């Protein structure tokens, strides 16, 4: 009888223990697993908590480095590189219109212009010169970061039979324009670029193609259609004149080159657009001429 009673008690006790274990939720079990309080001192003694902390920091650092690296992949070039890439991209896209990929002798314009800049005291000016075989662009300075890209139309030069000195004077005035940053400012405004250059598209993972298209369109618009304003042209003419005046021979070359251009655009329909891009040679001559004293 006593054996039966003890067996009954055992079964009841077993059921109780079993039932309690079954009722434990997963989170409770996890809590038990993560609960280090019982062995806290032991962990401290073995420096395991320090090790865990160090590993935690390491993991966080690695994670941050990986995120930063991934983020860097989606970086849009900063001010200098952006304009250099965009100017080259625009030239590559318009190769068939501008016709710069043509066989020609070494005109030596670049070498001459380099000496001209040195003569003017403009040192450490890095530039790239591209002769183009089209009358659509006459002469133009494109932004390229710390450099300047100069376009020179060979048909335009031939039409006026310009000397290397005259070309250099024109390129010099283009350099002054570039230094004022008119081109960049106008393209940036037209293409609504504020906040785009040097930004990151890690979150969206998609480059704003509309912006790139609008930059290229703004280049087109500026170079082929709009050109510089009267105010900009006035400032550039006055500034160029200031730089050239101490060397009177160069100043005379500048004046006579504008005279040549003025007569060309009045006689040759092909270059009529010139005064729209660079307004206007006739006005420039007026700005440069010394005012008569009363």
């Amino acid at each position: 009888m006593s054996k039966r009673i003890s067996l009954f008690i055992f079964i009841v006790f077993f059921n109780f223990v079993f039932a309690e274990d079954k009722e434990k939720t997963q989170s409770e079990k996890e809590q038990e697993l993560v609960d280090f309080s019982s062995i806290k001192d032991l962990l401290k003694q073995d420096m395991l908590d320090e090790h865990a902390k160090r590993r935690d920091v390491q993991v966080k650092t690695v994670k941050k480095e990986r995120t930063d690296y991934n983020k860097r992949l989606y970086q849009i070039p900063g001010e200098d590189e952006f304009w250099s890439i965009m100017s080259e991209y625009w030239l590559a896209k318009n190769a068939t219109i501008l016709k710069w990929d043509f066989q020609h002798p070494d005109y030596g314009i670049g070498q001459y212009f380099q000496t001209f800049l040195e003569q003017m005291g403009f040192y450490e000016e890095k530039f790239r010169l591209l002769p183009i075989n089209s009358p659509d662009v006459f002469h133009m300075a494109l932004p390229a970061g710390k450099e300047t890209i100069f376009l020179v139309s060979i048909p335009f030069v031939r039409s006026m039979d310009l000397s290397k000195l005259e070309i250099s004077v024109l390129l010099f005035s283009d350099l002054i324009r570039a230094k004022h940053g008119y081109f960049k400012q106008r393209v940036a405004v037209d293409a609504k670029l504020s906040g785009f250059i040097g930004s990151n598209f890690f979150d969206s993972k998609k480059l704003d193609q509309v912006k790139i298209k609008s930059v290229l369109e703004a280049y087109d618009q500026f170079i082929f259609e709009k050109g510089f304003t009267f105010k900009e042209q006035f400032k550039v003419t006055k500034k160029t004149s200031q730089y050239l005046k101490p060397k009177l021979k160069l100043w005379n070359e500048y004046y006579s080159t504008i005279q040549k251009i003025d007569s060309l655009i009045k006689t040759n329909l092909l270059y009529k657009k010139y005064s729209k891009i660079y307004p206007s040679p006739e006005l420039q001559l007026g700005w440069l001429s010394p005012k008569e004293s009363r």
Partner: protein
Amino acid sequence: MKKMWLPIILFAFLGQHALAEIRYLSKTYAHLHQNPSRFSQSMSTIICGHPLRVIKTLPPKTSLPKGWLYLKAGPYKGFMRESFLSKGKARCPQDQYPRFFDQLDLSVTEMYYWGRLSDQFEEGRSTAR
């Protein structure tokens, strides 16, 4: 004595390849030309950072103008200006801004012309003397 000849013979056959000089393109895009002239036909468009092996033996009846190298890129052999190349890995915009360049989605024609552009530019820098 016979054993000494073996490395010499091996070097004669393999040395040229084993010690080949490697240069890396430092322009965004450039061309490997058929002849050592910037107007010459393109054999292949090369992307910045691409390694090119310098070949010392020129094709028959070809002379190498100053500032040009005869190179091999993949299966193509051709000429390129030395100033376009660097001895170490170049700092390329495509590596600095990879996703930007990927998503510019340049066509083959655009890459071709971008490469031609490097050839057509006349570069200069004014310096104080």
